[in-house]
């Protein structure tokens, strides 16, 4: 069986190894939540078997091991990038193999010690399971009243005045409409009239918001007033046509 089909039972994932790879690559599974150590342990339990000579050594299926190593190395690199996204100290690619091995050994040693510390703690908790003590106050502990410095009664009146003060009307400031300046449309229509002799106002402002259309109309009327443009409409509510005029 290929290691791709290796069946995994991890905290964060249950299923074949290749599905885990797919989920990681499609970002449906956080690689940070995956203990790669567990994957390795599962692999070894499946593909390493004791030698027959009772030497305590193990034989690894080299073919499966090779494929597995490539996949796990890729996962490890991805994970390293995720865990240290902007740490300038970690330039894994720049490490030479010797340094990388030293770094890896140091990390593993640190982690192994912590695992041993955790194991010691687990054993200690079991040994201490028969030690019961009170967490929280004693039922008959004295509770002397907390002493309070003299206070000014005016504070109470002030608190009451604040409580009875009607809240301000809700502010509508954040709802104020933002209007583009008329100048923007003046410049825009002048530029159009320099290129074309005539344009249809409605087509020109079709894509704008109602507010922008209104400001554009003010600009157009401005142009008409100054004689820079002539404005015409064949019928009420028909499209407005604009011709260039004399300056």
């Amino acid at each position: 069986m290929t290691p791709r089909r290796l069946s995994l039972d991890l905290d964060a994932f249950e299923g074949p190894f290749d599905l885990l790879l797919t989920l990681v690559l499609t970002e449906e599974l956080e690689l940070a939540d995956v203990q790669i150590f567990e994957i390795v342990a599962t692999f070894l339990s499946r593909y390493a078997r004791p030698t027959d000579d009772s030497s305590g050594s193990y034989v690894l299926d080299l073919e499966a091991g090779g494929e597995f190593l490539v996949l796990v190395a890729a996962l490890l690199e991805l994970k390293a990038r995720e865990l240290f996204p902007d740490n300038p100290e970690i330039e894994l690619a720049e490490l030479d193999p010797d340094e990388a091995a030293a770094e890896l050994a140091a990390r593993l040693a640190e982690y192994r010690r912590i695992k041993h510390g955790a194991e010691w703690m687990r054993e200690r908790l079991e040994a201490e399971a028969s030690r019961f003590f009170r967490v929280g106050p004693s039922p008959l502990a004295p509770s002397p009243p907390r002493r309070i410095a003299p206070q000014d009664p005016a504070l109470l009146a002030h608190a009451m005045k604040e409580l009875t003060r009607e809240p301000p009307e809700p502010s509508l400031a954040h709802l104020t409409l933002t209007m583009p300046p008329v100048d923007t449309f003046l410049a825009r229509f002048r530029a159009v009239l320099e290129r074309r002799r005539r344009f249809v106002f409605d087509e020109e402002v079709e894509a704008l918001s109602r507010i922008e259309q209104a400001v554009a109309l003010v600009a157009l009327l401005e142009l008409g007033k100054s004689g820079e443009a002539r404005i015409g409409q064949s019928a009420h509510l028909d499209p407005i046509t604009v011709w260039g005029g004399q300056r």
Partner: protein
Amino acid sequence: MTEPTQLFALDNPLDGVARVVEGLLVVASKPLSAEEIADAADEPLERVEAAIRLAGSRLREGRSGIVLEEVAGGYALRAAREAAEACGRLFERPVQRGLSAAALESLSIVAYVGPVSRPEVTRLRGVVSDSIIAGLLERGLIEEAGRAEDGGAVRYRTSPLFERVFGLTSLSELPRLDELADGPEELRDRLETVAGLRGA
């Protein structure tokens, strides 16, 4: 050092149960009834009651600094009276300089509009005030004043300590709020209206 109680322990078959009683009581953060102790110790009630008496004869004033006491709800351990002064020093708390804004608001409601219940303070402030009321009670600034006529929630009024802290001989000496309302009823109405406006 001679250990005469050791002999005594060997003599009395109840001693093991008495030690279990002591162990349970030193871990408990509330009084334990004889039944609770019997269930936990998995012993018959009469035996446990005898063991409680035995433990009580050891854990008593003059003989031990830990005293087994029967209180409402069962049995609990306390410090012997000769340790009272030391316990007082252990639990002594520094003088509190000021009161929080939330405490002042709630106190002003109890003082001007009280007696009021927790739900009423919550409604009049427009903020859940249960823990504030509990804090004021614990500090002794307010006290229970019975239930509302309709048998509803417990109501609270200010305490004599409140008057001492605020330098008043009675509530009638509170600063007047004539410009706000004409009497507690009107003040209550006004608070309710404003709380409603805030909530809206």
